[in-house]
């Protein structure tokens, strides 16, 4: 089951660049939340703060509070534990090229020393089914490398890899931006099916995509969150002028 995320006064920097300014936000459990906004507005930085990936960059810095299911991830936890609970899918598919499809999916579990062969087989199968890839790869799970798949399949493989560790939150940083429309549609279907089990936060450039998959939408601009509301309200009757300008295509 997914958990909710509460963000209070979150500020983030890259060097001297103040990329996130005073973000306050409650992301509900078991919903899809979309973050939209022009390039460089801080949406990717925001999701990277939720699993503490932001700080892997040596010049990055964060202040503020993020609670995942009540746990203050910056005060009371180590990054490693957080990332075991919060899965992430990146903009460009990044399967491990030296591993088979099976090992790619099992990577998160093997990394953490999980070695029950039979259970691993089940988990790999379930994750690949959940990411709608099973039928396409079931015959060469251990024969083919993760890099031998097409771009769309690779991205679904990465989703399967994230799902295999059974995360409470799934972060997706523009998961379909490098894919063709058919693969994008598959990923969107997938997001729709997954939300009953996970809290999903998806960053997207594509406003139609946000409208299609998300119940809640947040609009970011220049490092600030301008508006956060139900997707329906954001796209039909936004309360902020800037949101309206953006969604009607007047800028960005």
């Amino acid at each position: 089951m997914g958990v909710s995320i509460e963000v209070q006064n979150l500020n983030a920097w890259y060097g001297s660049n103040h990329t996130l300014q005073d973000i306050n936000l409650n992301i509900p459990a078991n919903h899809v939340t979309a973050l939209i906004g022009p390039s460089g507005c801080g949406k990717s930085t925001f999701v990277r703060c939720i699993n503490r990936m932001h700080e892997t960059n040596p010049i990055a810095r964060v202040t503020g509070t993020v609670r995942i299911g009540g746990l203050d991830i910056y005060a009371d936890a180590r990054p490693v534990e957080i990332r075991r609970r919060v899965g992430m899918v990146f903009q460009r598919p990044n399967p491990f090229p030296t591993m088979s499809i099976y090992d790619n999916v099992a990577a998160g579990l093997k990394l953490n020393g999980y070695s029950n062969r039979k259970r691993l087989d089940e988990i790999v199968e379930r994750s690949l089914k959940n990411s709608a890839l099973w039928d396409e790869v079931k015959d060469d799970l251990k024969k083919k490398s993760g890099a031998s798949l097409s771009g769309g399949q690779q991205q679904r493989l990465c989703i399967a890899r994230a799902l295999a560790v059974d995360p409470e939150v799934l972060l997706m940083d523009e998961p379909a931006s490098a894919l063709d429309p058919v693969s994008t549609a598959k990923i969107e279907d997938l997001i729709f099916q997954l939300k009953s089990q996970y809290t999903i936060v998806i960053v997207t450039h594509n406003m139609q995509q946000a409208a299609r998959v998300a119940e809640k939408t947040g609009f970011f601009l220049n490092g600030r969150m301008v508006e956060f509301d139900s997707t329906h309200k954001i796209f039909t009757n936004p309360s902020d002028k800037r949101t309206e300008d953006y969604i009607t295509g007047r800028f960005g």
Partner: protein
Amino acid sequence: MAHRAACTLWVLGRPLVRLQWGKPGDSCEFLLVCILFFIAVTCLSQLPGSLKCVDRTVPEIRVAQSLPEPEAVHSPEHQAAAVAGHSEIRRYLLARGNSAGADRLFKVLMTLCAISIFLIVALIAYQLVDKSQMNWARSGLKFFYTAVKDPVTGQPQYWDPVNGNFSAIPFIYGTLVTSFLSLFFAVPLAVGVAVFLTEMCPGFLRAPLSFLTELLAAIPSIIYGLWALFILVPLLRQYANPVLNKTLGWTGLFGSDNPTGLGYLASGVILAIMVLPIISSLTREVMTAVPQSQREAVLALGATRWEMIRMGVLRNARIGIVGAIILGLGRALGETMAVLMVIGNTPEVHKSLLANGATMASVIANEFAEAFSDLHRSALVEIGLALFVVTIIVNIFAQLLIWAVTRGTPSRAH
């Protein structure tokens, strides 16, 4: 010009004339001459008129100068403009012609520089084969795997210049033992240095540390030899060797019969320091070539730093790291001076790593000046030939592996 071409042919063909058919090694020599000739001919035929050009360069410029102007200038408008508004600079530049000769001369000179590389390698190989003929004719391939037994003691006489018995076994053995010993010490250290530099080094330390690592490669090997002789060997003799002998003597690898401290182990350690910068800097290069997205993919799964490096970096870079190690091996195989100073220079085979030995490179350096019999000299050259072939193969193999990683194979995800 015809004379020059004839000269070239004569120079290239001279070894052909010297061929004496019916002796062992002839086919080998003939092959080499053919290769040499082939390289020369192909290179020359690739250049349109390269040979001719050398002679014709100067007159050609004059021909160009005597031409009044390029053809286009003769059209009515151009001619009018030419007569009316020729500045001094324009006249000067027009008088220079089209510079085709100078261009061609430049091309020929640069091509000759490039060809010289082929020629140098071919000539080295030719000389090594040529000068080792005597020993090759005497013992053939047996030189590399058998030795004459002493009639009295039954002990193998590997290297006996007095009676003219030569075998390469102790030197091949010594080269292999010292080289692999050096890799045993250097690889973990070098990979550790590379991991630190690429993954966890604070910015201010990165430049000095990588500079120091590279600096290790720039120190002349005689300095390493001196350091090893005066610092390392006494340390081994006083502290390390007795301890090794006491604790691991039962394996037979650390016998106690050598009180000098010289030997395979000392050579291995000094070689390790010498190959460290090569392995380390190349490993760093291939690790830097691993895309950042791979590191993030592993981190996002909840990996610790070490797990990230193991799964995201080392695993992806492993082929290149193997290449770096093999390149280090290439250096260790051929390293001469430092090894010569600390290995003890005894043409014998010992199981104990603390015993004296000799390597292929060290025996050549050590004995060549004093080798008065032709057979002795020829045997040394043949060892050199073997070393040459092995080092070239090892280096080609390593370069291919590194190239495969840093260029990015088609199947890589970025």
